[in-house]
């Protein structure tokens, strides 16, 4: 399960730290950046691809159409607004969640957990099982073949080889060729003798 990435846009250091503490208590939540208004939001969103953006209602006063900009910057992003105590805002309906700043911690955690559950249910649960083709590529990686060599041997483009490799790395969480080789041996995809014959 990949973590849900949160971006917090909040000028106040104290509130930012408060949000950080709350996110710390949620499982599967990962705080990516606690940005200030001053930085260019669209660029940050482009870089970190958050699933949820939390920000202060004051930002709405500065930029009333901010939610449109944010929604446009990333598809399906969830917007969470932090509003003043007992305030009712006109444009609340544009947000996926509005948190009252005076809410109890347990209440905020419950609301955010619901949001995370919703996001998780939309995610396609990914298994770490490799496809047959990915196993073919992994075996060749372990044998020290280059992308070009693999492409020729498997009759696919180097581009496809690279995308298989990316998927293998993501699924196994092993990045180095040496690490992938160990994995291949442990799972008997390749024998040590085969490796010794190469070197």
């Amino acid at each position, binding site marked *: 399960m990949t973590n849900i990435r949160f971006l917090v846009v909040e000028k106040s250091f104290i509130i930012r730290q408060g949000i950080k503490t709350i996110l710390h208590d949620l499982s599967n939540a990962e705080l990516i950046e606690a940005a200030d208004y001053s930085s260019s939001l669209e660029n940050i969103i482009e870089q970190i691809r958050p699933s949820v953006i939390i920000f202060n209602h004051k930002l709405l006063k500065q930029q009333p159409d901010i939610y449109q900009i944010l929604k446009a910057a990333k598809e399906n992003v969830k917007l969470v607004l932090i509003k003043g105590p007992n305030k009712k805002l006109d444009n609340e309906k544009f947000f996926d969640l509005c948190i009252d700043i005076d809410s109890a911690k347990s209440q905020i955690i419950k609301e955010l957990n619901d949001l995370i559950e919703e996001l998780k249910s939309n995610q396609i649960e990914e298994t770490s099982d490799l496809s047959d083709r990915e196993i073919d590529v992994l075996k060749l990686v372990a044998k020290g073949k280059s992308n070009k060599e693999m492409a020729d041997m498997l009759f696919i483009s180097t581009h496809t080889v690279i995308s298989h490799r990316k998927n293998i790395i993501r699924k196994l*969480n*092993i990045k*180095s060729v*040496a*690490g992938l080789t*160990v994995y291949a*041996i*442990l799972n008997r995809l390749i024998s040590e003798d085969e490796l010794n014959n190469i070197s």
Partner: protein
Amino acid sequence: MLINKYTKLSDVILARYNCMPVILRFGIPFGFGDKNVEEICRQYQIDADFFTEIINVFIDEDYFPQTHLQEFSVKTIIDFLLKSHRDYRDRKIPYIEKLIESLEWKSPEAQKNKSLIKNFFREYKNEVIEHLAFEEKEIYPYALRMEEFLQKKIQLKEEEISKFLMNSYEEQHDDIEEKLLDLKNIMIKYLPPASNLDVEQMVLFEIFRLEKDLNNHARIEEKVLIPKVKWIEKQLKTINNL
């Protein structure tokens, strides 16, 4: 918590024991009594401001050095970094190697796992040693040379200025933790469990610790050494333009 010159050294360790190796690297043995950082540093002839900054970088990931970087000489910084290098090379890494060597599996078939892990770790070790050697041979002497040029107000040739290293070093400051992450994943997820689980657990503990320590070390290079030398490069350029 962050520390300052008036914090008792014993309190520092009680609150954040992960800074112990750093204190050791500064050559400070236990038995501090109630002495504070300033008193201990005076006793061992260590720059107390530098010591405070280094400890804070180690205990708080978000900490950014407050004191003017110009106050510490490049030599002070590098002396410390070299001590850390020695610690990784001569103690930390050999210790993990020894632990891996004592891992055991019941079946002779599974014993092969040991050589797999051993070889993998050896590759990692060579990578780290190469990385440390590069810094010791290229980067640190360069940084010291730049400091000397500035102290002597030496005017550099255009050509020498074009060879300034810090920007490219900062960009390429490569990640030597990748293989450690892989090793953790392999051991936690894929390796058949060893029969002496306690040793296997110790290996993992030590890997986590080494990873953290290397991270902190890299942060000192990135937040203390690099900005300092970049500042020197800038001054040297200014001298040159006058």
